[in-house]
């Protein structure tokens, strides 16, 4: 396994890996293909022609529930959750670099937020708002429910980032007279920027796709995953797949954008982060 030449074990494991990737993506490609069914096609293969009929069905109001409304709600919510997750995780992550009272308790509380059964959480938030006489909305109770899911991921990433962070950069900046704000703006953020984009990616996609924690917490207006799940029982045409293709496309676009930004930030880091060999400027 550690010799120069590839051994049989490499090829067996590589084959296993490919098989897993096929298992992972195969079904997704099946529905993407089927969403382009001809107008007379059904929910399974074979393809009966090729059309974008089912996509246009999606945009016809009332045919398949409130698609447009739930889509824009989910996008907006995901964006808010993304920003909130980045800011809150960064802030808490910075605090956790120092020792403070109850830091372990806060850490384990955050972990419990991750492992607590979603159905319990969504029921609890629903009941809480109900009992307080407040009306739940996707941008209040729904937002909170999503943050309980995204923040633990954000914080765990921040831990991983700061465990590998070399404090001497900050110390050097301070020695040169930088204020706290300048250290954050000109030293910390440029270095951990790519990781923050990663946190944002988690925040956006986890919120955009969250079903279980949304169920009883978003109030009367559905977010997209709830709408899609409702459709699984009522819609028996490839419209369902068209919707799946469209949301998957949105997710993939977000992932691609985040990766792009990460690559750009890393390049900037390389370009501006090191002036060795340039002599005194």
């Amino acid at each position: 396994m550690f010799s120069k030449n590839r051994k049989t074990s490499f090829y067996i494991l590589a084959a296993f890996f490919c098989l897993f990737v096929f298992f992972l993506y195969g079904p997704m490609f099946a529905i993407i293909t089927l969403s382009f069914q001809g107008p007379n096609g059904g929910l399974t293969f074979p393809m009966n022609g090729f059309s974008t009929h089912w996509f246009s069905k999606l945009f016809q109001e009332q045919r398949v529930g409130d698609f447009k409304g739930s889509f824009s709600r989910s996008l907006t919510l995901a964006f808010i959750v993304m920003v909130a997750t980045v800011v809150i995780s960064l802030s808490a992550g910075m605090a956790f670099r120092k020792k403070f009272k109850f830091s372990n308790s806060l850490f384990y509380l955050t972990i419990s937020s991750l492992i607590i059964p979603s159905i319990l959480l969504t029921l609890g938030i629903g009941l809480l708002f109900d009992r307080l006489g407040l009306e739940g909305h996707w941008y209040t109770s729904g937002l909170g429910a999503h943050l309980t899911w995204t923040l633990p991921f954000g914080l765990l990433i921040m831990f991983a980032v700061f465990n590998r962070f070399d404090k001497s950069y900050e110390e050097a900046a301070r020695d040169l007279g930088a204020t706290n704000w300048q250290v954050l703006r000109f030293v910390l953020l440029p270095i951990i920027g790519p990781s923050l984009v990663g946190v944002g990616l988690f925040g956006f996609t986890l919120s955009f796709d969250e079903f279980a924690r949304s169920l009883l917490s978003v109030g009367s207006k559905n977010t997209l995953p709830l709408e899609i799940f409702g459709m699984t029982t009522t819609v028996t045409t490839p419209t369902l797949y068209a919707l799946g293709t469209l949301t998957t496309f949105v997710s993939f676009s977000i992932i691609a954008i985040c990766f792009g930004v990460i690559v750009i930030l890393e390049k900037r880091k390389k370009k501006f982060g090191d002036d060795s060999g340039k002599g005194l400027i």
Partner: protein
Amino acid sequence: MNIQLQILPLLSVLVLFLVAPVVIILAVSFWDYTEFSLIPDFVLTNYIEIFESGVTYSTYLNTFKFAFLGWLFTVIIGFTLAYFLAFHVRTLRWQIILFLICTIPFWTSNIIRMIAWIPVLGRNGLMNSLLLELGVIGEPLEWLLYSDFAVILAFVHLYTLFMLVPIFNSMMRIDKSIIEAAQDMGANSLQILINVIIPLCLPGIAIGTIFVISLIMGDFITVQAMSGGQSASVGLAMNNKRALLQYPAAAADAIILLCVVLGMVAILMRTINIRKEL
């Protein structure tokens, strides 16, 4: 900047949307109810009914079965994939690329990923067509979709990543010189795997286990969608009571489930220090 201010946003979200909901569920679990309303009270009937009902035990048994099988497959597959990535893929660049290929579906919708099995496993789906074509079976298999098999398959499909990531992380932290030392002492690949790599990966396996077990124990949507309502899980039973507006009964279910999950996680937590593993 002072620390209190830095942790305030996180703390307020957790208090408002995690602690408060659990507290209210705990309170409501002792309430009485009629068909139409909740009656604030302190009764144990909700719990007594749950413990006296045979359905509870069979539901838990079924949920444990899902959790165990889901865990078993995800740990075997996750470990194998991580092992390949960490020790057989040679450049960091390819490790990252292959790792991301495994990760990307995690950022897409679980619901869609479940729906995606319909054209594959359904009665007229790809799998049945293929097997019929090959003459392996005479008529379509009915148990591929809407069955316990489909539920486990979906769990493996959705949650293997939660196992892969922490195990891969553990493997990448193994000092290569330890492995070289084992080789110098004459250990073969299998011996290195069993005596060096697996023991050093136990924290990663434990973290993955925490994720997978707690996700499956609390699941209701995968079981409902993939079993077509033919199988039961604790979360699903709870959601059904909730749908019948029996909130106190659902709340009592939730509290028991929470205790079970936290108990399982607490046992696993004793074996590791998560903050050190990150």
